């Protein structure tokens, strides 16, 4: 897990989001779906949970980078959505630090939700399935070493 270092709560300076919002968003979706498909291929995502995602649309938005990824799960594959139509079935929105803390299993999504640092909109049951599916991935079987993150960030922590 997150032994050895701690991801602090931080917020990137506003100009990053202002630039990020103007950049194409599809690379985020491609990167995220590639990672999710790799995880699915490894068999670490429970089949019953994956089945519940079929045909659903998702948005993951990182407020302070101005980036967002829209994607769907269909026919056994996560696929980027290049021109998403209408509201997604499920949206997770947060600052980068919150997503990193969840990814590193340093913070519980419920904690971040209570503190209003993570927003979940749309189909609540779908959100729960996704959250619990990611929680159930047993990282210890991969001997994962987390990447060193540039934690001495040149801006103030909140």
């Amino acid at each position: 897990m997150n032994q050895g270092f701690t991801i602090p709560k931080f917020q990137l300076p506003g100009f990053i989001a202002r630039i990020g919002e103007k950049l194409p968003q599809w690379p985020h979706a491609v990167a995220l779906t590639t990672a999710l498909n790799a995880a699915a291929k490894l068999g670490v995502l429970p089949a019953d949970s994956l089945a519940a995602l079929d045909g659903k649309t998702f948005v993951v938005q990182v407020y302070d980078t101005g980036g967002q990824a829209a994607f769907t799960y269909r026919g056994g594959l996560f696929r980027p959505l290049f021109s998403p139509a209408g509201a997604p079935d499920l949206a997770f929105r947060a600052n980068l630090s919150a997503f990193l803390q969840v990814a590193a299993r340093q913070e519980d999504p419920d904690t971040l939700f209570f503190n209003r640092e993570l927003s979940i909109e749309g189909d609540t049951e779908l959100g729960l399935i996704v959250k619990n599916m990611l929680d159930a991935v047993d990282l210890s079987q991969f001997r994962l070493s987390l990447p060193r993150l540039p934690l001495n960030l040149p801006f103030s922590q909140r």
Partner: protein
Amino acid sequence: MDRSALPDLVCPAGSLPALKAAVDNGADAVYLGYKNDTNARNFAGLNFDAKTMAEGVRYAHGKGCEVLMAINTFPQPGRVADWRAAVDGAVDLGVDAIILADVGLLDYARNRHPQQRLHLSVQGSATSYEAINFAHREFGVLRAVLPRVLTLAQVEHVIKNTPVEIEVFGFGSLCVMNEGRCWLSSYATGESPNTVGACSPAKYVKWDKKPGQMDTRLNGILIDRFADDEPAGYPTLCKGRFEVQGETYYALEEPTSLNVLEILPEIIKIGVKAIKVEGRQRSPAYVTQVTRTLRAALDAFANESERYHVKPTWQAELAKVSEGNQATLGAYNRPWR
């Protein structure tokens, strides 16, 4: 104090990684359930299938940690076989105890598997020593989990009058705590922990975000509205804010967490056998944080006894993961009964 005289630390496991987190951070026992409505945390995607259950039991036992299986909902009409199958499966897995609430199921487990250790679930709603002794006499129950409604003096009174081990809650989200008898969720949705294994099932919950506010709706009923900087809670009726005679406030209960670190010495002194952490629905990160903090506190008491004091770092760690703005001692320190 001899460490073996400490109460067991019983921690929640909603997934295999959460189970490993509990075991690795000092739990004496983990409690878990199947991926179905035979347990009271039947949330989408949570809990164990046959494969992860077997692996979890193997992992815990390999590290000397007990496994307690919660089968603590009430068998529904026409489906008693499902609950009996869950009991049989738990016995086959070699769990250390099965946590049951329904008397019919207790009777089945007692007769079918007389060697299996049985615990009375908090959902069994036994708050008096008479009720607990009844479960002991009729079904051989060896431990009872007390609902969070008793004062510490009342807990002590129960312990003095029963041969059954007593388990109490030590940390986690509080609700109205009418455990096993609460129908608020059914009032709004037609489904409750007793019947489907979930309070306020997610399919009825809608978080409605608008500029400057977020509405929480349960089956269409507005139960709370948060400003952007206000902490949120679980979407249950008991934690909603309602308009009562022109005033809008937490008419039943404010979202709050129980935290017994301050009264840990008293809990140990009166002879509590096990301290339970709420939160099978929470992530491995929560289980890690809470287990290691309570382990540190229990070990500190074993080492320092009279000099035990609550460390600010423990409280900070627990405050962070708490639901609501405040942690309380719940009913334990109520001046009234």
